[in-house]
């Protein structure tokens, strides 16, 4: 995949997300499926999910407005990438 506006590709995002999740969730994050729900699989708890939201914001380069759709997307690594991919351009007016 081709990087856009300095944002990571899906592969890069998944690799960074795994590194991030390993930091806050331990070794079990290494083996978590990219389509697995991060709370149900025990990687994140209610405290850590906000840290993960902050990580996704950092990757997309802008703050997130967490509506119901975003709430659903943030729960797996692969779907969270949608929030990064469709982020408004940092250069947009």
């Amino acid at each position, binding site marked *: 995949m081709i990087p856009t506006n300095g944002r990571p590709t899906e592969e890069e995002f998944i690799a960074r997300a795994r590194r*991030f999740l390993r*930091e*806050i*969730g*331990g*070794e079990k994050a290494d083996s978590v499926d990219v389509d697995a729900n991060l709370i149900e699989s025990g990687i994140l*708890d*209610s*405290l*850590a*999910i*906000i*840290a993960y*939201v*902050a*990580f996704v914001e950092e990757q997309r380069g802008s*703050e*997130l407005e*967490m*509506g*119901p759709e975003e*709430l659903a997307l943030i729960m797996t690594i692969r779907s969270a990438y949608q929030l990064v991919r469709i982020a408004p351009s940092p250069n947009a007016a």
Partner: protein
Amino acid sequence: MMNLLAIYESMADEKPDELALIYRREPYVGETRTWGQLRERSEFLTKRLIAANFPEGGLCAVVLTDNPDMLPLLMAIWRLRGVAVLADKMWGDRLRESVFSHSQPNAFVSLEPELTVTLMVQPERSADRKRQLEDGALLSYTSGSTGDPKAIVMTHGRLSTTMYAAAAAVVRHRGAPPQRVGCSMRLSGSGALNLHYTWALASGATVVVMPQLELSTARNYWREIEEYEVDQMFLVPPLIDVLNHAAAPRLRLRKPPICITGSSPLSTKTQDRFHRKFSVGLLNAFGLTETMCAAFFGEYDENGMGRHSIGQPALLKARLRNLEGEVFDGQGDGELELSGPVMFGGYFGNEAATQAAFRGSWFRTGDLLRRDEAGRMTTVGRIKDVVMKGSFAIYLNEIEEAANTLDGVVESAAVPIQLPDGGEDFGLLVRFHPGGAARVDEIAGALKQMLGGLRTPRRVIEIAQPLPRTGQEKLSRVALRALWQEVSGQAAMDWATQL
């Protein structure tokens, strides 16, 4: 009036038909209690306690739950001149047993699934413990499962004085007392109880028990605040972050409530985002269980937004002591020391911890503060071996003592770690007996069973070498942080490492 029960009674006399409680949280949505109903229910529960032979002046262990009968139950205990030992239902087995073993309650009362009173046979309480419990309303543990338990007796006198000062601070900030105090936190301990229910009592306000705030409920937060006309709210910084990320904008149909945070460090990033997103000033309060509740109430800037400073203390004197051990005036960093009439009288049944915590009449908070040229103070970090996880103080030695009892563990060390969003947590280094069957992936589960989820390490790492210790064989906290960084690839907290 210096007795919480007397204050509730006076409210029931003055406005018996006005609402004291409104429930908007499952499973009690739609239920309300007037001040008069609180008194009536507490009188009924008093009879139940008497019928169960609860001794007058006894200690009563209470598992806190968000239940409309919780305040009446506390009132019933106080009517019998008893003291409530507060327990969190999320505690693990070992923590609960240790707290009850140390406090030696005369009865255990639970409201769920229904009211049950279990009497417990205890040895005669020592004269010193009796003295400590005089005028007691609540007994609150900040660390319970170690050989060094830290429990604070919150007396009626200190608590009511503190909460009247808190109510007065809000009037100073806002110009008028609140009518309704919103509670979006779980009733887990004395903090949540006093920051909402007792604060509301001192203000004569109604408590609105709102849905527990989390990512999935945050969207409607401001709509509910406005719908239920809440004009005072308190949220710990992690919950402010939840609002920052997930709450829909305010409707702005009503004047915003006074918004207060505290109980753990607030980052400027979190406070700035709150201001920017919701255009409401966020006050950064500061207090400890040892000071009964909040003792500093933040301050507004010239634009009505909250400063990062915690403001000036109410009812307490405050001073800073620098790294050289000298009390100083003016600009600089130092440990906060507090003294005054609402400061606790010492840890219950733990004279050694009391001696270590005080310099004369001054309590050593273990918090590192910075004072700027204008005399404003902000929190910087901590000197004690404590992390603030969520809004809870977790003592590292409590985790280590529990881990060291597990089969196969030679030694362990809990290490503070900084989460990427600025939050705090801790990891655990463990060394096993060589050739044993113990497994590192079983440690977290075992600790969760013993101490509860809050005291479960975020990450457990096995090490082969002995843990670094000082000349007195104490764990070297500075060296442990470096070791954690080396073996985890993750930065441990480095604040206060010079101290």
